[in-house]
């Protein structure tokens, strides 16, 4: 018996509508964010994007956890989880540093909401993934490397 949720949904005839993955592009259109920071999205380096967002410094923090594959199974859709344990987390921003446009987006965390996001992003080549958290007027960051390989040749 197929006990996966996909199987249950297929059985119920409602498959397909519930895949809850955000694609990078979904965060871009201006109608999603009224205050879309065009210069941050157009920036070609993380440093420039941060500048455009008026973030001058971010302290390294072990209280931000990025969960991402060490080696991506498919660079076109890499699942990434970010959790912030920093009290008063207001937003979580994500950057894929080697992408042509590193800034992926910012998730605002409503008061009382759990500071956790799950996204699927395109990663063109092996790159650091950087999460920047805003909390109580300060910024914090952490980094994880995701390797993207051409594949083949496994033992």
């Amino acid at each position, binding site marked *: 018996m197929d*006990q*996966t*949720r*996909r199987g249950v949904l297929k059985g119920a005839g409602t498959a397909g509508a519930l*895949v809850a993955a955000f694609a990078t592009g979904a965060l871009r259109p201006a109608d999603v964010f009224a205050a879309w920071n065009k210069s941050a999205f157009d920036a070609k380096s993380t440093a420039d994007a941060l500048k455009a967002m008026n973030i001058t410094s971010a302290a390294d923090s072990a209280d931000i956890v990025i*969960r991402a*594959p*060490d*080696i*991506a*199974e*498919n660079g076109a859709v890499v*699942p990434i989880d970010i959790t912030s344990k920093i009290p008063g987390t207001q937003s979580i921003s994500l950057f894929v540093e080697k992408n042509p446009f590193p800034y992926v987006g910012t998730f605002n965390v409503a008061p009382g909401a759990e500071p956790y996001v799950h996204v699927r992003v395109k990663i063109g080549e*092996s790159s650091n993934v950087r999460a920047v958290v805003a909390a109580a007027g300060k910024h914090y960051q952490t980094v994880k490397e995701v*390797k993207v*390989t*051409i*594949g*083949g*040749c*496994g*033992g």
Partner: protein
Amino acid sequence: MNRREFLEVLAAAAAAGLVLDSRAALAQASADALYRVPRFGNVSLLHFTDCHAQLLPVYFREPSVNIGVGGAAGKPPHLVGERLLKAFDIEPGTPEAHAFTYLDFEAAAKTYGKVGGFAHLATLVKRLRAERPDALLLDGGDTWQGSGVSLWTKGADMIEACKALGVDVMTGHWEFTYGAERVKQAVEKELAGKIEFVAQNVKTQDFGDPVFKPYTLRTLGGVPVAIVGQAFPYTPIANPRYMVAEWTFGIQEEELQKVVNEARGKGAQVVVLLSHNGMDVDLKLASRVRGIDAILGGHTHDGVPQPTVVKNAGGRTLVANSGSNSKFLSVLDMEVKGGKVAGYRYRLLPVFANLLPADAAMAEIIARTRAPYEQKLGERLAVTEGLLYRRGNFNGTFDQLILDALMEVKGAEIAFSPGFRWGTTILPGQPITLEHVMDQTAITYPFSTLSELTGAQIKEVLEDVCDNLFNPDPYKQQGGDMVRVGGLAYTCVPGAKMGGRIVDMRLGGKPLEPAKKYKVAGWAPVAEGASGEPIWEVVAGWLRARKSVPPRKLNLPRLQGVEGNPGIA
């Protein structure tokens, strides 16, 4: 004669320069000398892995190059030849020295004969189980792939043999290259009630639901024991992703910790990881995940005589790796007292076909499953004048033969052949049969290709694969060897960073030009929709045109910065 005396006699004979006739050499000692393993404690596990569908005895040469970089340099499993013997206190010139190293391979192979074979393995399993009636037999995977018959029966021959062998639990890797549907069908129907397939790190892409049971809880000698499965984490990367498009893999450390905690919560006093991570990944994992007593590992085909003991926040974890090609059987006896492992004994037993009589029932099964293919497989294509083997970080003589055939048949200047670690060994003077060629090539995506690649693209491919082998972080390694390269000379700097490991690439003495296009032949493309003549037909055709194949000239990179590394002979 006890085991020590037996080894001394053989060592003395070897020292005297005697080339012993195999039966005579082995007849000097009863199999008891090598295979007497008195039971210890109250919980016993038997483990084999990466047999790659080798049902009959084979020759298998261990590597002479297995370089460890970073923290792995000079530590097991990255020891070869004499350095390995010394580290594990194994007498040179003994059957065990032959089993664990490449040393004096041809002469020793003639002396001690073939290794492995399920009929011989079955005899050993029965012998060990006679003293350990409730011992579990664990199979680490890469079981259904590696031979012509397994390919043509989609692993059905191996499933039948494993059930007869008495395998209790398995996990997988190459099994997945038959496609998700075949694996599910085998697990749910053919293995049902006999062999449990466990893998905590395979989930559905959509919701992250488990595809397989993550672990099984058994009671052995009155002690609850959990066997957690860990499939090869990089299956969709190292092998075609389209075969398992709806599944996601990965190491999944945090999930593993949860599974271990859950098993402990349900009363498990012993937790063992049946792993297809590869030994370097297992060593790192053991330092980070708490509550695993032992990792019985495979994938990297390392025949490591004794486990490495890794300390972590929860205590200590044994990390073992049990070789390949049904050449070895691990025996892990544990004494569990007061809910904890209080002591252990471990042996990695080489399976010498001449020392272990064939089990009749198993021999009959093998003969029956082979019968429809026997004639085809037995075709003698040519005789080899040199030793043909595959295993080693950079190249093997059988790979060189494949590269030579590819370049000649396809009219290519350069050829690539994947750094697989399976594939058996053929002694000089032996006929090369179609079966031997299948042993090196039997995969579900065997297409041979001819492409035009620029010098820059060639460099990119080599750097990419080299990083899978020498990235200092084991979690970023994939456990295969370097892609074998024909025609092109290069220098490899294993300790450099990615992008700087492949230097001084030359074709016919001239530096490779980044913008120039070159004709490159290859096989085993992982992209969907690839096509081409199966590689075994290319190689078989090339061999048929020759009666005799002279020793191959190995194209090896010049190595830089690893002088004195005990992973190089």
